[in-house]
């Protein structure tokens, strides 16, 4: 019997050279549209000429909610914050926000990509999340 936990990693995350978290998106070679997650065809012009693109850097919270009733199959901390984060001026990401108390988040907050480990059906599941990009004093350490 092994006590080792299975950890599966979401296909949406990657690391940059410095070990920072990046999101696996795509860009259309025909029209330049960036997208997350990657697709078979461009979400704007439907071209099949899409190539992988790593997305990273600071994003901005454009909308968020605190989820206080978990759907079946979710085994992470409660409550949790789900948000829309805008990367650049074109890529929207649906994501957890972590490392702040839920009530501390504000629309317009600057955030950086990170990872979040959640219990999955087949062991732990590593997925993308965003954390505060602000000064460390604002980070409360809660809800990590």
């Amino acid at each position, binding site marked *: 019997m092994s006590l080792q936990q299975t950890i599966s990693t979401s296909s949406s995350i990657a690391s940059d050279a410095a070990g920072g978290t990046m999101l696996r998106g795509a860009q259309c070679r025909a029209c330049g549209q960036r997208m997350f997650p990657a697709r078979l065809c461009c979400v704007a012009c439907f071209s099949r000429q899409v190539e992988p693109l790593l997305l990273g850097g600071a994003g901005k919270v454009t*909308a968020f*909610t*605190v*989820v206080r*009733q978990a759907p079946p199959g979710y085994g*992470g901390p409660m409550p949790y914050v789900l948000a*829309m984060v805008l990367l650049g001026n074109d890529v929207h*990401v649906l994501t957890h926000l972590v490392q702040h108390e839920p009530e501390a988040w504000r629309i317009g907050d600057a955030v950086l990509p990170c990872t979040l480990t*959640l219990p999955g*059906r087949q062991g732990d599941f590593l997925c993308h999340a965003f954390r505060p990009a602000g000064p460390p004093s604002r980070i409360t350490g809660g809800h990590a």
Partner: protein
Amino acid sequence: MSAYIIGIGLTKFGRHPDISVETLAAQAVLDAVEDAGVDWRQVQEFYAAHVSQGVAAGQRVIKEIGPSGIPVVNVENCSAAGSTALREATMGIRAGEYDLAVVVGFEKMQHGILLNVHPEDSPEVAMGTTVLPMRFALMASTHRQKYGTTIEQIAGVAVKNHAHAVANPKAQYRKEMSLEEVLASRMICDPITLYQCSPTTDGAAAVVLCSEKFLRQHGDARAVKIVGSSLVSDIDEQAHNVFDLEMVGRNARALYEKAGVDPRDLDVVETHDCFSVAEILAYEQLGLCREGEGGRLIADGSTRIGGRIPVNPSGGLLAKGHPLGATGLGQIAELVMQLRGEAGSRQVAGAKLALASNMGMWSSCIHILSV
């Protein structure tokens, strides 16, 4: 060629633990056929709309009524299944394929929160993004930020619709609810509280639809004309992770143009208030007010019965109930009653032109009806 609704049937929406879903649906069908004054043997086509009532559910319903050998088509389109099936039947009538069709929607639901359906082992389940009110909470977050819409205005949708449902004997909840009660109920996804979420519901609704030719021969002074019927699917959320009701606006504008209808001429509207904020966004998308003014329509009573443009006189999904596959046809049944002047104490005076906006993941289906 036009299609006309000549009969409706509606079970009580609520809990029916002792009645099978097939019987529930068959009752709605038989009531609709009787209401239309036609014989079951005249019906030429049968559409059965539901979300998760199993394989060949329509054939199982027909077995309860009397198998007559006509085509049976099962339609699944999430919560827009009922209206989507009505659109299919309308297209068949307009194409001259048949002259008399029955469309029924039905559902018996499990208790619990509405979910965005994904396979059990998908990342969305582990991430907790399947919780359906989440997407409407994000729309509320955006709308509040952009236009200053208040949590009281959003919660006010539930207050209004519960007040309307008191006069609807078919509604699941027939009790007035104060703003304080709505706001104080358990928080689900900020700012959406429990009473701002549609309940899970058992119920069935049916419509008898006929061609102009059939109407001329059969005659029906209570016939309601389908002047517009349109289905579109989502772009913003699925392509761009942007949560909004753009699909509803795109659908409505194209349909107004095609049907030659000005939204200012509408007398009554049933819209898909699966979560309170959805109704406020729909006001704007359907052109009942300008963008950003949706909250004001709740605050000033414009959408109450007796107001400028009454919305959800039935009580809406929030109070009448939301039996997924039946919901779209429940809206139609309410509007037919309103246009016939048969809506009792919730009657919108002099209603001549009505609109039903039904949504599912990820579709918008709209019908415009007139007398």
